[in-house]
């Protein structure tokens, strides 16, 4: 369960103050697939980063599974991200020196999962995203769609209950984009993973149980 209560996020750019989010309240139930849509600069990515504990709100509360994240230390926030949240970014952000398999293993390395176990789990996950036997390849030997699928596998490494996707198809062609979206949808339906997906692409709204529209830092429509 994700709850945002009257969240405000302000940035300071030089002497100029930008209000990215202006009093946003939102709750996402376990197992729900929520698509957040809005034009660029609407504050949708900021919203996702706050849910993912990558950033802290200027005021208001972000509550994950009943825990007020503003009260957590950096270490506790790191553990929360590691154990409960999986991230999928538009630019994939794979580590270029590591193979696909090692990229998937990385969150488990940070958690201290034993080598054997993380190895077999990473192989399972690559199979899940349709990259069985491709584990030895480096990111620069993979297509954009394949890289994003590795990133999804990595996001699932520590069995998170929440998957946060920031324009996951933004850098992909329509066909690869569909493959990636189908995997995310399947995870939501079959594994019960809560998905919050941020996009400006209207064609993705069909995947969600619910679409939340955001503009100028405010939710303008939620169905």
């Amino acid at each position, binding site marked *: 369960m994700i709850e945002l209560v009257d969240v405000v996020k302000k940035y300071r750019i030089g002497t100029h103050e930008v209000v990215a989010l202006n009093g946003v309240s939102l709750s996402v139930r376990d197992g729900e697939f929520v698509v957040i849509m809005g034009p660029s600069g609407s504050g949708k990515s900021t919203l996702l980063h706050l849910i993912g504990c990558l950033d802290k709100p200027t005021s208001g509360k972000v509550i994950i599974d009943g825990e007020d994240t503003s009260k957590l230390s*950096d270490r506790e926030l790191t553990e929360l991200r590691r154990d409960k949240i999986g991230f999928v970014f538009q630019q994939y*952000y794979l580590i270029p*020196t590591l193979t696909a398999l090692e990229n998937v293993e990385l969150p488990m390395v940070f958690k201290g999962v034993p080598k054997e176990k993380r190895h077999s789990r990473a192989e399972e996950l690559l199979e899940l995203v349709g990259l069985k036997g491709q584990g030895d390849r480096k990111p620069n030997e993979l297509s954009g769609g394949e890289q994003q699928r590795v990133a999804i596998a990595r996001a699932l490494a520590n069995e998170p209950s929440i998957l946060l996707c920031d324009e996951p198809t933004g850098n992909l062609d329509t066909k690869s984009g569909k493959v990636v979206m189908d995997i995310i949808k399947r995870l939501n339906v079959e594994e019960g993973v809560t998905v919050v997906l941020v996009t400006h692409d209207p064609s993705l709204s069909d995947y969600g149980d619910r679409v939340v529209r955001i503009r100028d830092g405010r939710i303008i429509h939620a169905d």
Partner: protein
Amino acid sequence: MLIELALRNLARTKVRSTLAIIGIVIGVMAISSIGIFGESLKAVILENFKDVANEVIITPNYIHGYTSIDARTVRKIETIPFAETVIPVKSESALVEYRGKKTYVTVYGIDVRKTKDLFELEKGTYKGCLVGSKIADFFKLRVGSRITVARKDFRVTGIIKEGARFDINPNYAVILPLRDFDRVFNDREYSMVIVKVKSIDKIDAFKKAVDKIVNRKENKVSVFEMKMIIERIKNVFGKVTLFLMAIAGVSLLVAGISILNIMLMSTIERTKEIGLMRAIGAYRETILKLFLTEALILGLVGSAVGGALSFLGGYSIDVLILKTAKYVFAPSSIVYVFLGIAFGILTALISAMYPAWKASKLEPIEALRYE
């Protein structure tokens, strides 16, 4: 996995990493080579004095008005159990003449049986009048030459090999058997007593015994240890070595700055990666450890190579300056190799601290957004 990741990060910028390693290699090599040289220099100099290290010189206590040591005192010294050889010495400045040439020298009277404990001969035998090599050169003396010492004639039986002592300068000395000395200078008392103590660690016990037996009522004699001079020499050369190493250390400092530089570049280039790792569950310490591990690898490799090469460096300097390489692999020299290695590793780690700290302090979202 962290080590693996660190290795691959270093391999990503091969040229840069190699240059950083070369910096450490040069620094460690400079420090260790100079350390080896300093230690060898000290060893070469101390080698001259290795026979006198256990010697003690007993002189009259001039401050308390004593100008000589009497025979009774000598006999008391001889009873001290820690003394291996006791050599009482008489001395007097006298005119020595040979074929019209003359010069003033210090003439010593020493028991014929004991002169061999103090000097080595170049030619001849110990049983009569011995002359130092410089005196022999001055008068052009040979074994058998007849010289005049304080108007009495003596036949030279031996020429002393060139050498160095703190108590008697063998090169300018004329040594007479005690009986002859007494005949020339009318039964003088002793001017000093040279004692060879059984071992270096018995010197303190010997000194205490002298104080108890000879100096009980009055401070008749002073005891002077050769060990002290040797300690002083060691001390001075230790400082010289340290100073030279400090100069060599500058090269290690430069190497450290180069590591600091490449690590800072690395944190900037890898900002997004650091952000990603933080996002998916790396603690600040994990990032800190990753960067320190990279520096440690640079330090270890550079120091190991530098340490190995420092033998070559030390060997070259020793052969060039000291004309001998026998102290290059002495345990006391090898200490400096390990010291250099330790400094190399430490330099790498210290240099990486600031970049590693900076990387670990990055906020995940700002790092991810960094362009």
